[in-house]
Structure formats: structure tokens, C-alpha cells
């Protein structure tokens, strides 16, 4: 009892998820999940379909209000923020099935990620006040730099519509980066990529972590990627944590092999 309390008090982390419960019409999507991620660490989040990974993302990014539990980022209570305050707190994410604006160009989609950082506001933008144009130019230049970093420079003016799925996943990453996040949450970023491309993508994540001191939460079914880049791995099943540790530790976990990895893992 005392040990448990001490552990709770002493556990510090940059991102702390504590005893989060989310229910949908009686079904517990998250059933008391707890874990912490240190600053500049990459945490892989794995588990079967329906284990609650995306629900957890939605809680951290303010889309769902949990029924119970706490989430904090650098000591700040995330759940107390309004949904649009989460981006300001430094949290950016990508979506499993893409959350892009199909008819807008790749560049515009990335620039939208920086929207919450603009100060001139809608009216200033409409009236083309000098401050707004200056700000717009700066954001545009930055978005172009992000596209170059992600190898998407040549698609800048292409509408998002019609680009391959794997490319669109990277456009989403670009939009998330434009928000200058402290915590980057990636939902199945390797979808649609071949083995060689996944390896490159893994390098990119490591590079971003080094250069931007990003903390990364990564939901991914591609074990090569998760095990290759993560510092810690958290496994969920039925909304609960069933394993946590270094990739090597988690890989040996029998529960996880039975529930998720299968024999060929």
C-alpha cells in the first residue's frame, strides 16, 4: 500500500498517463491504463486492434474526455485544457486514416499545422495586414523546409487528393511538425510503406528526436519499426497495460506473444 503510494508520488515523467478509463456505451475501451514517458524518449504503443491505442491517442489529444484518470505533460494537466488548447500545450498527432483536407495542396495542409501559432488571427489574414503577411510568409517558408526534410518538396503544390497513402502519411507528419510539438504522437505512420521505406522512416524519427528533442508516442503494427526505434514499449490489450519495458523485454513477454505477435514474431 505504502509502496504503491510512494511509487505514484515518485513517478515523474514528461508525459504521464495515470489510470485512464474510457467507456463507449458500456464497453471499456480503456480500463485503467497507466504509464509514463520521459522527455526525448520514443515510446512504442502496441496491441491488438481494438486494444485501446487510438482511444488513448484521442484522450491525450483532447478529442475524448475520459471517464476517470489523469494525463499530464510536463506537469501540466492536459485534461483540464479545452480541445484547442492541447495544440498550444505542445501536442501534435497524426491520424490512422488520415485527417487531411483532400482538395488543399500539400503545402497548405502542412501550413495548417502552424495555425494555432499564428497571432494575427483570421481578421488580420483577411485584411492582409502587414503583420499577417509577414507571419504567413514565415510559416510558409518553414512549411517548405519541413516538406524538404520529409522528401516531399516536389509535391508542395499537389492537392492531397490522389497522392499515395504512404505519401499522405508523411504529409500528416509534416503538418504535425509544423505545430512545433513537444510531444509527437504518430498513429500507424508506416502504413503503406515497403520494408526499405520503413527503415528510412525509422531513421527519420530518430533524427527528429535528436534535432528537435521531441518526445514521441508511436502506435504501430510494424514490429521492425517499433522495436527498432523505441526506447520503451507499452503493450495494451482490452484497454489495460499487459507489458511494459525495453523492446527486448517486451518481445519475450508470453502474454503479448499470445495476444498480439503470434508465432512468427
Amino acid at each position, binding site marked *: 500500500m505504502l509502496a504503491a503510494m510512494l511509487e505514484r508520488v515518485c513517478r515523474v515523467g514528461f508525459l504521464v498517463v495515470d489510470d485512464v478509463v474510457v467507456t463507449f456505451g458500456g464497453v471499456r*475501451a480503456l480500463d485503467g491504463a497507466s504509464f509514463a514517458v520521459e522527455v526525448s524518449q520514443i515510446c512504442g504503443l502496441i496491441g491488438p486492434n481494438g486494444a485501446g*491505442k*487510438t*482511444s488513448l491517442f*484521442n484522450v491525450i489529444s483532447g478529442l475524448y474526455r475520459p471517464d476517470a484518470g489523469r494525463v499530464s505533460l510536463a506537469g501540466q494537466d492536459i485534461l483540464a485544457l479545452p480541445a484547442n488548447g492541447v495544440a498550444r500545450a505542445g501536442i501534435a498527432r497524426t491520424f490512422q486514416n488520415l485527417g487531411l483536407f483532400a482538395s488543399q495542396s500539400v503545402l497548405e495542409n502542412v501550413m495548417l499545422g502552424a495555425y494555432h501559432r499564428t497571432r494575427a488571427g483570421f481578421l488580420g489574414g483577411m485584411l492582409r495586414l502587414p503583420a499577417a503577411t509577414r507571419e504567413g510568409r514565415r510559416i510558409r517558408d518553414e512549411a517548405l523546409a519541413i516538406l524538404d526534410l520529409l522528401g516531399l518538396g516536389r509535391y508542395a503544390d499537389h492537392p492531397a487528393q490522389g497522392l499515395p497513402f504512404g505519401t499522405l502519411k508523411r504529409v500528416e507528419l509534416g503538418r504535425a511538425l509544423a505545430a512545433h510539438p513537444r510531444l509527437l504522437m504518430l498513429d500507424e505512420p508506416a502504413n503503406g510503406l515497403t520494408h526499405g521505406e520503413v527503415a528510412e522512416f525509422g531513421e527519420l524519427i530518430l533524427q527528429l528526436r535528436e534535432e528537435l528533442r521531441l518526445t514521441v508516442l508511436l502506435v504501430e503494427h510494424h514490429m521492425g519499426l517499433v522495436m527498432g526505434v523505441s526506447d520503451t514499449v507499452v503493450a495494451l490489450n482490452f484497454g489495460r497495460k499487459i507489458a511494459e519495458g525495453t523492446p527486448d523485454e517486451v518481445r519475450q513477454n508470453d502474454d503479448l506473444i499470445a495476444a498480439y505477435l503470434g508465432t512468427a514474431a
Partner: protein
Amino acid sequence: MTYFLQQVVDGVSTGVIYALLGLAMVLIFRATGIINFAQGELATIAAFFAWQLNLWGLPIWLAIAATAVIGFGAGAAIERVVIRPVANKDHFTLIMVTLGLFMITNAVTGLVWGYTIQAFPDPFPVAAWTVHGVSLSLASVGTIVIVCVVGFLLYQLFHRTRLGLGMRAAISNPESARLSGIDVGRMQMIGWGLAAMVGTLAGALAAPKLFLEPNMMLGVLTYAFAAVIVGGLDSPLGAVVGGLAIGVTENLAGAYLYDFVGNDLKIAVPLALVFGILLVRPQGLFGRRAVARA
């Protein structure tokens, strides 16, 4: 109490007309994802057509039935010729197109039949019963029965037939519907055709109460629109419940709030109701909320 019940019954008998036109709008929304602002005008032109056939000697019921059949073809043709070419455009374009259809239909009606008010023959014989002091006319009861039958048949069509399954699949996921061998374009034409048929009935049942003239359905359209918004744009049941709720509220407001709001403002009362409901349930009473599963 009797007075109150009488007002409710009268409200129901106008409400079913809103419900019927609302059903037509729901049909089109479900088939093509479009809100058809021309629905009322199409119903008006259909009513004129039936009236003309009757004038030429066809019995009124036969005239209405013939108009419904022709209406089906006309609705399908409008989908194919007017809507399909712009189907992939954004919502504003589609709204402009149906508004354009509204004005053209209205103008054509006026051009052909003029703006003189005509009397539309009542398809129901004049008869009434009195139950506990509440008077029920055969026309009211008949209209209610027709709306119930139409609603029931549409439900059967959508949920019990292969064609209905194809129509629902086509609106749910057009791409997968095509890949399953469903002719999505044909489903959309049929949706518009059915809507025009239901709209014909709405026009023909409204006309005896309203007098036949080109702008006859304007008020009905407003209420039918409010009914489907309240009920949920994709819900046939919602259109019926919404239509009844609006008909009854309108009538009760006229009866009890007359001193307060006056006759001109009584139409605002059901719209205030709509506003209130939408604040609480933006998807409408029976509408399906877009649920994204994790």
C-alpha cells in the same frame, strides 16, 4: 380539454403533409446526399398536372396516380440531366443547383397555368366523425392513413428488398457499391424518382387545403425542411415525427399564444422549437451521428 385535443388533431392532419414532403426530401438526401430545395415546387407542378388531368376528365384519384407515375420518370430524369453532371461539385454548387431548379419550376408552373388561384378537387368525400367532442374529417384521417402507408412501404423497400439494399449500399459507400456490381447511378435516379412520387402525393393532398397556385408549397417547404432537420436528414421516421411535431406546435401556438404572438408570428414558434432541439441534438432527433471508431 376537448378544445386542446381538437387543436392537436388538426395539427396532426397538417403535420402529415409536412411529413410527406419531408419524406421526399429524406429520400433524396439518402440517395444523393443533397438537400433538395426544389421539392416543394416539384410537388406544386405535380399538383397542377393532376388538376389538369382531372379537368380533362380523369377521375381525381386516377389523375393523382398517373401524375405519380409520370413524376417518378420526371424525378429520375432530373437526377440524370441536372444533378448528375454536378454531383461531384461542392455543397454550395449543389445548393445553388436545387435553388435554380426551384425558381425554374416555379416560373414554368406560373407560365403554363398562371397565377390565378384554382380550387383543387378534394380527393376525399366530405364526411366527419365526432369522437368525445373532437371532430375528425375523412380527409384528415385519409391523409394520415396515406402517410402511414407510404412510410411503411418505404421502410419495407429499404429494409426488405434487394433494390433497397442496393440503394442503401450506394449511399453508404459508392465505391464499394460499384465494386459489388451495384449501379450507383441507377440507384440515385430511382431515389429521385421515388422522391418525386412521394412529393406528388404531398402536393395533391396539400392542394385541397391550400388552394392551387404556383407558390402554394412555399410555407409547406419551410416546415418540411424544418421537420427533416429536427428529425434528422437521413431518417424517414424522423421526417414523420418532425412533421407531426411541427404541425401540432404550429396549431397549438395559433390556438393558445394568439394574443401573445399574433397570427403572423405563429409560424415562428415551430421554428423556435427546431432551433432549441438543434442546440441539444445537432444531428436531429433520429439522425445518425457520424461516429468514428478508434
